[in-house]
């Protein structure tokens, strides 16, 4: 670490003679690494500040968006004491975190591993570099394949579907004999850019009608016009309208609402209705004499088995309302297999690639409620344990190298400096 020669000590060719070589040299240079580290540092700082202004998920979507190369950070006026955080936009374009990380991984692999001068003294550094590359790959895998949601179950009840924290969908259920036979899905990917205005037509293959979303409000409550009059000229459908609610600090609490038209295949407007994730029951439409259910809700992550909450226990700090510890007894119903499992704060349940963490519970205000519900955070991530392996490797590398260098320093004879 102290006295490294340039890791790529090849005889200098003039750049013009081999442009590819020049590019590779640049991509594997320590200078690029230094710059990237500085950029990631600044990115992290802005991410911390922007999170308090815009919320965690919006910040993540903005900073790690692989579709955009640059963005403009927004931070709050931290010295403002009264009133809400006023955002200031920094007019300097920040490179997208996703692409910074990609570039960083390339630089680390090329410069830190492949073109790195290998010698026994450098094993520690090589291990550390490798572990970080592994960590970045784990992050990438997580970003694109992770499924995460909340599973809330009341005592005595069974469930096999978790709800995503942010994505919301429109579901169309086909009915036969009063039972649901098939559920079609308009995914959040097609809805999320309609926040703040815009319309989109959804042609539903395999169904005798189409849907047109004419308005999507990010956080809405469908309210009766008679008691809560529309203030901004919202459309009133069947005595109700979409009332926009203020932004919550944690954007997970947002629940959207839509104004929807049901159209026949020929484009004729059959019915207009309102859907919202806060609704208690779905809407029913009748097309060609058959009923269909329409509802909007947080996207479901179906689980490969059912979970039944047998008992929930919470222990409070004596004399306070604070929860000291809480745990759930669940039974996992997996086809014919059943198993009773205890899920506690730091002891999750893992099965079939899904991990269940005890995340929350309620109702929390009532000291003695009739029935508790338990909330589990449910995650499916193939790269779940990779960061752990990465840590162990990097620890080995770093500690080893540090001890080696320290020993060298302490045993090297040298003149003492003037005081």
């Amino acid at each position, binding site marked *: 670490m102290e006295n490294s020669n340039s890791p790529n000590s090849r005889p200098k060719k003039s750049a013009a003679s081999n442009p590819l070589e020049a590019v590779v040299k640049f991509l594997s240079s320590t200078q690029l690494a230094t710059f990237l580290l500085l950029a990631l540092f600044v990115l992290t700082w802005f991410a911390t500040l922007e999170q308090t202004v815009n919320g965690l998920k919006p910040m993540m979507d903005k900073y790690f968006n692989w579709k955009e190369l640059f963005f403009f950070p927004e931070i709050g006026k931290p010295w403002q004491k009264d009133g809400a955080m006023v955002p200031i936009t920094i007019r300097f374009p920040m490179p997208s975190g996703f692409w910074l990380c990609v570039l960083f991984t390339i630089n680390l692999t090329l410069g830190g591993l492949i073109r790195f001068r290998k010698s026994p003294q450098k094993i520690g550094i090589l291990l550390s570099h490798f572990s970080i590359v592994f960590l970045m790959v784990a992050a990438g895998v997580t970003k694109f394949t992770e499924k995460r949601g909340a599973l809330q179950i009341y005592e005595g009840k069974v469930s096999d579907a978790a709800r995503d924290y942010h994505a919301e969908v429109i579901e169309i259920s086909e009915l036969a004999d009063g*039972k649901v036979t098939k559920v*079609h899905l308009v995914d959040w990917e097609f809805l999320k850019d309609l926040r703040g205005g815009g319309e*989109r037509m959804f042609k539903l293959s395999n169904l005798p009608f189409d849907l047109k979303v004419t308005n999507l409000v990010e956080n809405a409550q469908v309210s009766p016009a008679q008691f809560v009059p529309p203030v901004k000229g919202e459309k009133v459908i069947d*005595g109700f309208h979409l009332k926009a609610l203020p932004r919550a600090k944690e954007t997970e609490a947002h629940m959207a609402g839509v104004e929807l038209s049901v159209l026949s295949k020929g484009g004729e407007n059959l019915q207009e209705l309102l859907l919202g994730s806060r609704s208690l029951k779905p809407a029913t439409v009748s097309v060609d004499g058959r009923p269909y259910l329409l509802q909007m809700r947080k996207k479901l992550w179906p689980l490969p088995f059912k979970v039944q909450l047998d008992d929930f226990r919470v222990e409070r700090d004596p004399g306070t309302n604070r929860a000291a510890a809480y745990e759930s007894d669940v039974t996992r119903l997996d086809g014919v297999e059943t198993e009773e499992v205890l899920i506690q704060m730091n002891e999750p349940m893992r099965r079939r690639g899904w991990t269940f963490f005890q995340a929350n519970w309620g109702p929390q205000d009532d000291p003695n409620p009739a029935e508790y519900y338990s909330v589990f955070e449910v995650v499916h991530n193939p790269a779940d344990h990779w960061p752990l392996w990465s840590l162990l490797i990097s620890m080995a590398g770093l500690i080893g190298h540090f001890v080696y260098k320290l020993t060298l320093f302490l045993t090297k004879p040298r003149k003492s400096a003037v005081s």
Partner: protein
Amino acid sequence: MKARAFLPVLFFGLVTVSCRKPDEVEISETRVLTTLDEEPAVNATSSEQFLPPEVLSQIQASGQSLDGSEAAAGSSAWIYLLPAADWKEADKAPMREVNLTFGDGEQAGEVYLSVSGGGLQPNVDRWYRQFGADTQPIAELGRLEFLGKQGYLVEATGRYEPGMGRPGKDGQALLGAIVEDQGRLVTVKMIGPEADVQARREQFVKFVASLARK
């Protein structure tokens, strides 16, 4: 449909959305059924969809409706208070502007409001006739509050023959209220098993007193 299967659709959707933000998207994605799909709540009214249960029952009790859920034959022109929890609104019927039922099973009965022409006495006569009883002069009828005025109260028991081809029923009773209003006759009839009708006499009086035109 496994999660992986929708990846191509998602990707397609992503590409199309990111490239063009299209106005039209083809949807073919489905999901597997879950416990949340069991016992679907079909045909929920708008009120049932959007209002929490406490608010919903308050509004139902007051007889108002925020949505068009009674709008079968145009919206009702009457407001009233349901005097008990087991009074329910029934589908509209011809000649009945307000159509309610009470109780269930053997103890069920009906209460309905009609607006008609004709005179007071002929209507009162007909009601007694339907119960095979002798009619009474108007002046000797009981009184009750009805549309802010003094209405007349008719009581009868016995076998009820509604007429017009409908079957008769034994052991029934009638509480009827009738008043002249805006040049028409407004009537409310409660018909059901004798014991139940008599037990619900107070409910009937309350209900009639609460009636008002919108």
